[in-house]
């Protein structure tokens, strides 16, 4: 299958990026190196090409349109100008996708979804959306850049003026950038103070170049994005969560509202009563060795689960990971060991509370 390309492919190549496949797209994995880019994001500001992600525009009253049944959070309580992290579930309670909802107007919404799920999500939404609601897939013409790091505010203020200071965590507003009025939100996937900037594909290359003119800003690839999100304990769709996993198993209780009606709710309530067979846990290794996807998790000699994501933590200098374990083994403080499928030595680890990294500038 041919990989899709963002409008910035040529820019990445000029910057010497190593390119690789992600969710059906050819994306920059790293420029100067994952550790350098990770550290720069934690200390200064990094710029990420996130044009692969999907954006939907939906017009409709949350109840009458059926939209409030499609997501697990309650859209009615959202104020205009706010964002909310939530999920869409199937009837069995499995996660079709995790996404961010933007309330643009009382009856106008933007859904930002994972690149690999755009078509599946669109079909799911259209199936349940009422006839008088309107659905538009902007993914092919709307670009997105993530500007992330403790100095992101300083950089963006130069460009957009003091109005940017009104953006608190998980809010957005419209700003004129390169002659186009579009959305800037205070959101991200790194755990740092940061923004996501939406702009048409025609203008996104100019915005990329403009932001990189600032010496504080350096490009970062999906390699660093992965280690940054893992240090915060953020899940990655397709790796940590999928259609066979419920938000209860994935520890996403905070992002679902069981008091309202939504697709998958009945299944979740039934599962809540029977107790979860498995729970997502976060664990810190005792050494620099990285737990990795599909490594098995043991308690003593008993196999209790599997690693979904793991890495060396660049900020903490030890191995970190997340994975699913059998219920009862998920308590914080539980000692586990992690092994690959060879006879190599095991990685000793302890279950801890997320996030792994606690000095972030996220809400400053």
């Amino acid at each position, binding site marked *: 299958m041919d990989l899709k390309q963002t409008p910035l492919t040529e820019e990445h190549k000029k910057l010497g990026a190593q390119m690789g496949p992600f969710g059906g797209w050819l994306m920059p994995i790293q420029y100067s190196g994952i550790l350098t880019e990770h550290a720069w994001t934690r200390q200064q500001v990094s710029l990420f090409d996130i044009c692969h992600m999907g954006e939907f525009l939906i017009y409709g009253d949350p109840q009458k349109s059926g939209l409030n049944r499609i997501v697990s959070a309650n859209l009615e309580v959202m104020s205009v100008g706010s964002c909310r992290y939530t999920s869409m579930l199937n009837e069995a309670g499995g996660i079709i996708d995790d996404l961010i909802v933007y309330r643009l107007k009382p009856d106008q919404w933007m859904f930002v979804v994972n690149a690999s799920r755009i078509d599946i999500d669109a079909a799911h939404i259209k199936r349940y959306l009422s006839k008088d609601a309107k659905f538009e897939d902007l993914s092919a013409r709307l670009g997105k850049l993530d500007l992330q790091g403790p100095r992101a505010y300083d950089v963006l203020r130069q460009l957009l003026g003091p109005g940017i200071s009104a953006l608190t965590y998980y809010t957005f507003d419209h700003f004129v950038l390169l002659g186009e009025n579009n959305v800037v939100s205070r959101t991200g996937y790194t755990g740092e103070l940061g923004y996501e900037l939406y702009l048409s594909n025609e203008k996104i290359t100019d915005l990329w170049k403009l932001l990189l003119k600032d010496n504080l800003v350096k490009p970062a690839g999906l390699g660093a994005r992965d280690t940054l999100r893992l240090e915060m304990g953020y899940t990655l769709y397709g790796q940590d969560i999928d259609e066979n996993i419920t938000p209860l198993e994935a520890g996403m209780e905070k992002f679902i509202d069981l008091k309202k009606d939504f697709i998958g709710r009945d299944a979740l309530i039934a599962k809540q009563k029977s107790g979860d067979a498995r729970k997502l846990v976060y664990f810190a290794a005792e050494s620099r*060795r990285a737990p990795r996807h599909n490594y098995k998790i043991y308690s003593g000699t008993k196999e209790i689960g599997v690693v979904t994501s793991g890495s*060396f933590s660049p900020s903490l200098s030890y191995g970190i990971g997340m994975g699913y374990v059998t219920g009862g083994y998920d308590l914080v403080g539980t000692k586990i060991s992690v092994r690959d499928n060879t006879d190599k030595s095991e990685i000793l680890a302890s279950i801890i509370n997320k996030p792994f990294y606690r000095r972030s500038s996220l809400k400053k």
Partner: protein
Amino acid sequence: MNIPEGLMYTKEHEWAKIDGAQATVGITDYAQHSLGDITFVELPKVGQSVTQTKFLATVESVKAASDVYAPLSGNVIKVNESLKSSPETINQSPYENGWLALIGIKDLKERGSLMSAAAYKTYVEGLS
């Protein structure tokens, strides 16, 4: 790509610097560059015997864990302990400070299956 003269090379991108009956071994500049930032090394144990083309060590980068194979058979005389706390030395100096182990060579004839610097250069150029 840095490929020093005087060392012997494998297709798996290990190098061996043979000095009499001993060989210092490590991974090549090409290998460290493909792996990216190296974050962890599991070294063999001193006294352990190793076999040519078989498992010698694990080198992990942020991206992946890779096995390193012994370029020659023999017993491990010494390992580079400094890599435990500073595995990034392999990225910075793959042929000098980033060496992995010193091996007492069991059979010098095995060097016949290794490549010279010139042959390895041709081999690497053929990969890209």
